[in-house]
């Protein structure tokens, strides 16, 4: 595989369900060895895109090439080289941890003996060796997710698709999953993941796109996106609840942008401490002040809005 050729290439990719357009003409290129993220609120079109890349959802329009092949015509051939970790675990609860891997390996035409060795290796990788002969049902959410990830790796895939890999996991479990995924990228596996967790995107992705309403609204590395769509620092000011609106007017012109929320005011500035000094100079006394570095979350909320999506 030459580095020049992207593993996944989408141009003007569209997915429609009846009158509803879930994915509205996106251009994406994923290159070998990178960790690529789709970031967006619920309903942004991330999962629909992932399903098209997974070759189980024919595109309604545009062009899509995966590993240089056509997902509609070459579905099985492409899927043989993909690993898929769905949003909801769909392990077989009747089987043991090990059998979940070995039976799945058979779907890839992997010989029984190789499948058993591969299963042992992967169980070690996801730290489930001790539970190899346990049934799936009593496993914790984190263990099930790790097993699902192991199952996605059973065919030694070139691309691993992960749909919200850590949604619903507790902090320890999330960090363990991140650590394992990071090791995969170190080994040169290409990761494509969706998430709505900013910290996850910052942790895992070399490059990501922000999706909203079926379109791509921004693209770049986490760092570049923060630089492009936010300021270096953010100042969070809290005032007594009823006086918020009154103060807000006086802060206009401070920094690049002022955002008034029901419970606090955000100042997007290059230098947080300097901005705080200016606020004090204006004679305003906030109930609390917090200066922090700008995060992907600020970019995300700026681009996709604060309205609750459900």
């Amino acid at each position, binding site marked *: 595989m030459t580095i020049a050729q992207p593993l996944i290439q989408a141009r003007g990719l569209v997915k429609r369900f009846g009158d509803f357009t879930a994915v509205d003409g996106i251009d994406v290129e994923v290159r070998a060895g990178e960790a690529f993220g789709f970031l967006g609120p619920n309903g942004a079109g991330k999962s629909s895109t992932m399903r098209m890349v997974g070759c189980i959802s024919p595109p309604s329009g545009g062009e899509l090439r995966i590993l240089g092949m056509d997902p509609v015509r070459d579905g099985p051939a492409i899927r043989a080289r993909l690993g898929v970790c769905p949003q909801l675990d769909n392990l*077989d*609860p*009747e089987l043991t941890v090990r059998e979940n891997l070995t039976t799945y390996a058979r779907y890839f035409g992997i010989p029984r003996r190789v499948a058993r060795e591969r299963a042992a290796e992967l169980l070690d990788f996801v730290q489930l060796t001790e539970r190899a002969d346990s049934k799936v*049902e009593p496993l914790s959410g984190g263990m099930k997710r790790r097993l699902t990830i192991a199952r996605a790796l059973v065919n030694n895939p070139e691309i691993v698709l992960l749909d919200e890999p850590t949604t619903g996991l507790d902090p320890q479990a999330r960090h363990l999953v991140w650590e394992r995924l990071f090791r995969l990228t170190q080994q040169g596996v290409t990761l494509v993941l969706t998430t709505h967790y900013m910290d996850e995107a910052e942790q895992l992705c070399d490059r990501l796109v922000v999706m909203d309403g079926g379109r791509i609204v921004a693209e770049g590395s986490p760092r570049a996106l923060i630089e492009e769509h936010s300021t270096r620092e953010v100042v969070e000011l809290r005032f007594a609840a009823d006086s918020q609106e009154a103060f807000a007017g006086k802060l206009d012109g401070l920094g690049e942008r002022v955002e008034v929320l029901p419970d606090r005011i955000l100042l997007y500035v290059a230098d947080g401490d300097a901005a705080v000094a200016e606020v004090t100079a204006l004679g305003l006394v906030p109930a609390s002040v917090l200066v922090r570095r700008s995060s992907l979350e600020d970019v995300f909320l700026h681009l996709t809005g604060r309205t609750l999506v459900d």
Partner: protein
Amino acid sequence: MVGLVLPRLVSFEGAPRRSASVAERNFTSLKSAYWLVLFSGFLEPVLYLFSIGIGVGALVGDLTLPGGRVVSYAAFVAPAMLASSAMTGALAETTFNFFGKMKYMKLYDGIIATPVQPFEIALGELGWAMIRGSLYSAAFLVVMVVMGLTGVGAAVTAFPAAVLVGFAFGALGMAVATFMRSWQDFDLMGSAQFTLFLFSGTFVPAEAYPAVLRWAVELTPLYRSVHLIRGIAVGASGWSWLLDVAYLLVLTAVGLLVASQRMGRLLYK
């Protein structure tokens, strides 16, 4: 034949069944299909009555009961269908639903946080099962009267008897449910239920069984229920029905007692 009780037994196997219990909450709140299931519940024993009572009855002809009374095969089978459907309905409602709600839905953990006591929950569940079962029984008795398989007076007397049968198996079911460890146990219970259904003097008089089997059969609750309702429906004389009623009353009381004791222990742990 395998059909009567089996749909409830074989249909839930292993994990699907466990998951079914979780999903169950969703479809109880659900639309027409569930209500159709509920309302069509009385259809099953009626279909059995037509198939076995009338269809097979045409091959069997009339039966001479031990008392010397001659009845049509349909009139002989109908009371047994009534008794066994009262059993099946009451057991399904109290065991399957109760177990699912307690183990998987944690519904009762929410309820015992209120002043409601475990025993009252049990009675509430049983009450709902009995309302539903009694409506089915009443409908079935109407069918029997219309088909000329029993008289109006006998049907009116048989109704409370059918309700009593429901209570006895409902109470028994609740007690049994507290001993259930997993869904696998339901297969056992279902098999026991089906065996009772086959061998409780349902299709042939118990007198036709070999002596040992016959004595064993006469001790089972379904046999007593069939005996009670059949006696009323065909107008048998004598006092043996008193034994049946006493048996079922004791079963109800013991079942409720065991259920309430065990539930308290399971819930307040």
